[in-house]
């Protein structure tokens, strides 16, 4: 009886919709409904659109984020990675996704740096050095299984992982990074244990003292110690500890860490200890040469490069630190590319038939694809649309909801940018939010003089920070 009572109370506490994938009932709403015209086309299209848009629904609140990141990516190379619950096994899946991740990471964070470590046989080994060049990391990962030196053997997972050794190693490797950048550790943990030589809590507090932020992606189950590590190093917010349900979820979780972490408001003491500092940066010009010349950074021959704006040394790739005068060298486009994390493009809202009728939009502003025309019966009841279920949509536009409406998709296949009021198709919606991070409607509209649309003036209200 006691056990039963327990079970019941647990069920009560658990909020609905938060159950794990394996607890969920088999989806029954998978059936396709017919539209009024007896066709299922409308509903299927809606489903497709809803699935596409699901990817976009994220927090678009602009927070201060650390766009100069220093990340230690820690892979698990312990025996647990030989599990075959991911195909062909966890190790190979991780290697594959990590390569993809590295490319995406540097695409999104061009002025960031990364190093790769691995937990292997109880200790932590280094796979690649801290650098901003994705190809060195990727080739180091490939070399794990196909060593360049034929005498070496391919590395296969072995032994147990040690979170403590990994954290200590990452801490030492990131110790010298400047204070204007973040120090992050992203751990992919396949095992359900950590075999540590000492007291991991000491390491955790040392990490907190060093401003390390740890994110852990588990592959097997939640571990208390991981939660502890993530919460302690992220200002008591354990949300950076995630556990992958399956292969695709694992990939999503990994790619989610390409978004830079938010900056927490520092305490007064921390602010005094680490005041805002001036960071010298050089924007070198690209030169192309007829014959290959030696670059200062690697001593390799390249057919071109960038000339340091201070000491005239040639470096072969950006961003980097000038090997001769230690100036940070980047391209202005790198800065611009990192900016969309700070100024995210707001989500576009679904457009009801009524709103579409009012705006009279016939084609997508982005790609000029024709929209489906407003149905005749809607056009008849012009202006006095009957609100069938009083559902106020997020954009404040009352919509007469049609039967085919699918959760998440717009009934009129139009999506509206609330800033400029233009309508777009689903594909432009995706493209603008995932790739260009700008709204073509807002960009092409004529600026209205110098009118500042910000709600509050330069002073701000203390919590908010003014960005110019």
């Amino acid at each position, binding site marked *: 009886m006691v056990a039963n009572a327990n079970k019941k109370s647990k069920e009560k506490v658990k909020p609905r919709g938060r159950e794990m994938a394996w607890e969920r009932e088999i989806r029954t709403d998978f059936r396709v409904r017919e539209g009024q015209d007896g066709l299922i086309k409308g509903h299927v299209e809606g489903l497709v659109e809803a699935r596409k848009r699901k990817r976009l629904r994220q927090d678009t609140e602009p927070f201060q984020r650390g766009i100069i990141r220093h990340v230690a990516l820690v892979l698990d190379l312990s025996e647990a990675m030989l599990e075959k619950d991911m195909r062909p096994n966890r190790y190979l899946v991780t290697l594959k996704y990590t390569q993809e991740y590295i490319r995406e990471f540097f695409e999104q964070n061009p002025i960031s740096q990364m190093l790769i470590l691995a937990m292997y046989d109880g*200790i932590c080994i280094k796979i690649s050095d801290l650098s901003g060049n994705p190809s060195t990391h990727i080739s180091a990962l490939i070399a794990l299984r196909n060593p360049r030196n034929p005498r070496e053997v391919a590395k296969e997972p072995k032994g147990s992982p040690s979170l403590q050794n990994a954290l200590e190693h990452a801490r030492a490797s990131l110790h010298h990074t400047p204070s204007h950048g973040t120090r992050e550790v992203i751990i992919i943990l396949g095992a359900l244990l950590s075999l540590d030589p000492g007291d991991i809590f000491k390491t955790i507090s040392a990490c907190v003292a060093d401003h390390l932020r740890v994110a852990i992606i588990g592959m097997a189950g939640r571990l208390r110690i991981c939660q502890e590590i993530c919460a302690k190093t992220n200002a008591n917010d354990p949300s950076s500890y995630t556990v992958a349900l399956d292969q695709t979820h694992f990939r999503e979780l990994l790619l989610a860490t390409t978004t830079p972490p938010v900056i927490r408001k520092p305490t007064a003491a921390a602010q005094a200890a680490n005041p805002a500092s*001036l960071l010298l940066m050089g924007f070198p010009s690209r030169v192309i040469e007829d014959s290959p010349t030696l670059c200062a950074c690697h001593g390799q021959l390249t057919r071109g490069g960038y000339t340091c704006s201070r000491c005239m040394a040639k470096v072969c790739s950006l961003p980097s630190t000038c090997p001769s*005068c230690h100036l940070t060298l980047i391209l202005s486009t790198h800065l611009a590319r990192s900016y969309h994390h700070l100024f995210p493009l707001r989500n576009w809202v679904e457009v009801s038939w009524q709103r579409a009728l009012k705006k009279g939009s016939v084609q997508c502003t982005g790609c000029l694809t024709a929209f489906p025309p407003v149905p005749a019966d809607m056009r008849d009841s012009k202006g006095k649309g009957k609100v069938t279920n009083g559902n106020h949509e997020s954009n404040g536009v009352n919509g007469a909801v049609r039967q085919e409406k699918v959760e998440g998709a717009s009934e009129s296949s139009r999506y509206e940018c609330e800033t400029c009021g233009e309508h777009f198709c689903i594909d432009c919606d995706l493209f603008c939010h995932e790739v260009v991070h700008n709204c073509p409607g807002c960009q092409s509209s004529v600026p209205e003089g110098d009118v500042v649309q910000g709600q509050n003036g330069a002073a701000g209200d203390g919590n908010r920070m003014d960005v110019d």
Partner: protein
Amino acid sequence: MSSVASSYKKQNGTLSISKDNREVSWIQTGAAAPTIRLLVADISNLQQTPEKSPKVSIKIFTQTAGANKPEDFTFSLTSATTARADQAAITKILRQEIENIRARKQQPVASATVPDDPGAPPAAFAIAQALAVSTGSNDSAFTDAKLLANSELQRSLLQSNVDLKQRFMQALTDKPDNISTHQFASQFWVTRVHLLREHAVSRGQTQGSYNVLSEVKPKNVDGTNRLNLSKEQIQLIFKQHPLVKKVYNESVPAMNEMEFWSRFFVSRLIKKLKGEKITENDPTDPKLDRYLSLGDGADVPVQLDGAHIPRFIDLEGNEQNHSQKRGNAPDMTMQPNNHEKVPILRVLNSMSEKMMADTATAKGEVHGPVGLDEETFNEIRLRDLQKDSLDNRIMLNIKDQKRFHTTEGGDHRSKEAIIYARQNPQNVLATISNESRSLTRFNSLHSGLDLEEALGINDDSSSEDEQHHQKRTLHIGSKSGRAAATKQIVGAIRQKRAQTDDYSAPPGSFAPVPFENTDLTIEIRDSLALTHSTTIEFLHYFWSVFHSGDPERAGEAQNMIGALDKSLDRIKANAKQAEAGRRAYIDRLNAQLEEHFRRSGKRKKLDLRQAPGGAEAVNAMMAPTVRAIKEASDRFREEYELQISQSKAVS
């Protein structure tokens, strides 16, 4: 400790340097305590008699912190045979130590003080550097000073990193003579202290302890049982199972070590220690089975020290209020004395306790009045019921971003846009239609524009013709003009292809070209690569000195400029050597051709494709390096002259 015979003020005695090289002392012969003791740190100057003079003596000038007048002491070296060598030895040690002390003093100064002379480089750099170097940490083991002082660690890092070692050795041999090895090495490591730290940590890693008996398994290879047991594993077994140690100690001299382990791993004893059930079929071992009855008496687990469990969560204390005593019996695995049936549970528990004992936190006083300190309290608080912590993310208040695309106030249109705005559309359209009509009118057969005609191509014109009429060479359609255009286009295509042919580098960056693709010989190539890397090392040294803004280090900067000039000479020497090699090759080839011509009467063309690259190739390859050196020395000279003129103006 080195000591030499010497005299001070005509009295014989011994001059010696203490073991830690901190102190110089002179003791009179027969005296108990030294008469003179000088701290090396106080030494301000050192003089010695010239090599040719018959008298050998050392003069030491000191300036103690308190005293305002420098003192000096003269010691004559009295040894009849080795006076000269003694002098050299003493001065060498002293000089090195003084340099060390100065170098140590300079380190913090270089990054912390902002120079106040106006000509110095911007202070912002010094600040940025200081920030980058020292972001506060209280780890005593990882402080920069500790790492820099640890020469054993540095050696081990050089051993493990071949590239770094090569760079270090080469730079060390090429360094200018007036910079000491110690100074150079410390400068070398100051810029690489992060590598040292990383190496220190990765070297210091240890594996956690594990249940070693369950890990070691005899393998069956070709019918015989093989056992792989490392030294560490044996130590771990002894540590985890004191009983095994006892057995080992008592039986090994009598028994072969190999035999002991092979018997141990099939014995009933190991089954017992692992917590497995012993069956009748298990082989007996008269020697080892004696210890079976001893039980775990020898290795009663080191209980987690009770002193470290706060009373608050002391389960022992709950015994009095034990609900299960009244009715439901505890689970059989939880009852005492019942462990003979399931020994593995008990064994695993005791194993875990032993392993945890090594890692248990040594907390401070937990037996205070309340029984727990703040940290413990935080640990056992029921966090599930806690509210979420405050959202302290920093929200950005974004103003209309479109504003950034326009210029502040005024006319934000481009110049061209302004010009276009002034045009009258009707006039413009009329002009365009007029022009297009006039173009097509010439050639009414074809619709559209005849480009050849428009350019005025004249195939009959020859280049000799054009040379006579200088002004016609500018004509677009001329032969030479077209040839030049073709050449430029083809050249651009070729270059573009070379740039983008290699897909190994991401777009926008430059793929490395293998050294084999240059036509320089291997020796020249290697020598150039080494020269290049040391040059960069020197440049790095120079700029860090230059940007430190420390007037005291001006001499160092000058030294580095000297070293860079030498680098230039080295590049030139390489170029010369390469050119000589190329000449020799061409001469040899010419001789061969001549020979061929004499024998066959046919002339072959000189094929220079295989010839090694000469000075030109070297200079092309090193162009950016040379440019960087030039920039450094130019900047130095500029600054130097500025300072000189300023100091002149002041005085």
